[in-house]
């Protein structure tokens, strides 16, 4: 079984309301943050013959469903 993780983050030019809310709280606690982005972490478990094949499939899933290219970017990596 091969696990592939897909990290999804809002595009930097798009207002990230969750990141804004989290950074406001952290700043109030005295942490001086320049920026905070909140995204999503998806772990996919697959029965594939190779890591390359698993990564290829994860990328296809991320392209089609897991991320919306207009507002998000993603990165997939084999765990």
């Amino acid at each position: 079984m091969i696990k592939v993780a897909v990290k999804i983050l809002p595009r930097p030019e798009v207002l990230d309301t969750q990141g804004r809310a989290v950074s406001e709280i952290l700043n109030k606690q005295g942490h001086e943050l320049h920026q905070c982005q909140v995204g999503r972490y998806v772990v996919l478990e697959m029965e594939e013959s190779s890591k390359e094949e698993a990564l290829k499939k994860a990328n296809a899933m991320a392209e089609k469903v897991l991320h919306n290219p207009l507002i998000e970017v993603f990165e997939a990596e084999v765990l």
Partner: protein
Amino acid sequence: MKKIGVLRFPGTNCDRDIIQAVNESGGVGEYLWYQDRVDINQYDGFILPGGFSYGDYLRSGALAAQAPVMDDIREAASKGMPIMGICNGFQILCEAGLLPGALMRNTSSRFIDKWVNLEMISPHQFFGGQRISKGEVVHFPIAHADGRYYIDERELSGLHDNEQVWLTYKDNPNGSVANIAGVKNKEGNVGGMMPHPERALFEWMGGSEGLMIFL
């Protein structure tokens, strides 16, 4: 008499309101289940109602956009059939790539439930047709957390050039780009809006201008 297919996904909750709106306007509304395939030739058009399909998991509308019935809606769209998405239905059509742009969390991060004034920018060829003319202001309710319409600048100028902006907010409640409340596809047969015209059918509801959208 127009027969309108009304799509139901798990979490759709404005479906009965839409059926009633269609019936009140003299048409016949029929429920369609998201896992079924549809003979599109049996219908004159389709409406995707509001709600919280799949609990807004992943992104609002993202999972519903992958449902089997959406292949038929895609075919209907390509054949020029009338298709309208309201609220979550609008989000689903954007996620399915049938409408441009995306809907994100309101700038205020709050769920907003109130009546808003909307300006008709470019009437939809079917839904509302010429009953609401260009420049006219109508009063519909909104009820959403993810209603901030987003599109990049290049695509936004394309929307204006092709008269794809359907309705705009007079007083932008959610941070939408260019005050956009509703858009259409390039061909003009597919439209989506965040406001709920089906909640404005009779005066006792607070206003009756929504009925014109379904006539």
